């Protein structure tokens, strides 16, 4: 009968016992190598993401804000009443000059007579 199964056992990979182990070892070794590369690439991607413009901008803002917050105040806050000029943040000398100017009309009443 011609339709009986053929004996193809000489082609059976199990005829060469080391074959399977050899191929499996090679496959797993290659997977380990590729996995190591993938892990490294993932790490590098994470590091690179930190260097994005948004992160850089956020870092700069944080540095500036931190510096301002930590900076020692240059002069203790004054107590007592402040003039309007001082309240506006003008230098003390300017504020004093403006205060003297606002008092000037009373002191210079005699000069107003010159016509």
């Amino acid at each position: 009968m011609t339709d009986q199964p053929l004996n193809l056992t000489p082609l059976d990979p199990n005829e060469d016992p080391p074959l399977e182990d050899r191929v499996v070892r090679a496959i797993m070794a290659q997977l380990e190598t590729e996995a190591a590369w993938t892990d490294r690439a993932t790490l590098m991607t994470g590091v690179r993401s930190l260097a994005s413009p948004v992160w850089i901008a956020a870092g700069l803002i944080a540095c500036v804000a931190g510096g301002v917050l930590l900076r020692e105040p240059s002069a203790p806050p004054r107590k007592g009443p402040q003039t309007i000029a001082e309240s506006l943040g003008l230098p003390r000398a300017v504020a004093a000059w403006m205060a003297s100017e606002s008092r000037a009309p009373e002191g210079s009443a005699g000069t107003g007579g010159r016509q």
Partner: protein
Amino acid sequence: MDPSDEELVASVLGGDRHRYEVLVRRYFRAAYVIALAVTGHPEDAEDVCQDAFIRAYTRLPQCRAPDRFGAWLARIVRNRAHNYRRYQILRRMSSLDGIAPRATTESPAVRLDRARLRNRLLRALAKVSSIKRQVVLLHDLEGWTHGAIAHTLGISELMSRRHLSEARRSLRAILEGTTFRGDRYD
């Protein structure tokens, strides 16, 4: 109880890549036979197997039916084997002659005998079409059903039966006058 293909695929996708070895060992024979049927060279089949299993691993997230990992892998093996064969034909334009088995721990006499038997069958198989080779090897060597062969090779069960019958007839005609006695064709 052995874990199912689905469980193994899930484990591998979950990060346990060492579980992939179980899948490799489970499907190595089938992958090798398909690769051998397409390439016609035992050494090429080995290379194709290795390449196909690596490719299957990298594409594992795309395996839509993990419970049918075997059929999915078989398609990858076939594609890789066809590509490999085309590349090899262009590269060396050689025949099936001159096949030498890789070094093993067996004695030279046993190795030579096995190589002679294998060469004889490979030469006969080289004279039938690739699809017939795949069908006859998967059926008569691997013991696959026509349903499984049809699904993997993308043909109908009827065609699988027809290819098998024709392949057997052709191979018997080629090997005419030779009989398999225990461990050799004479």
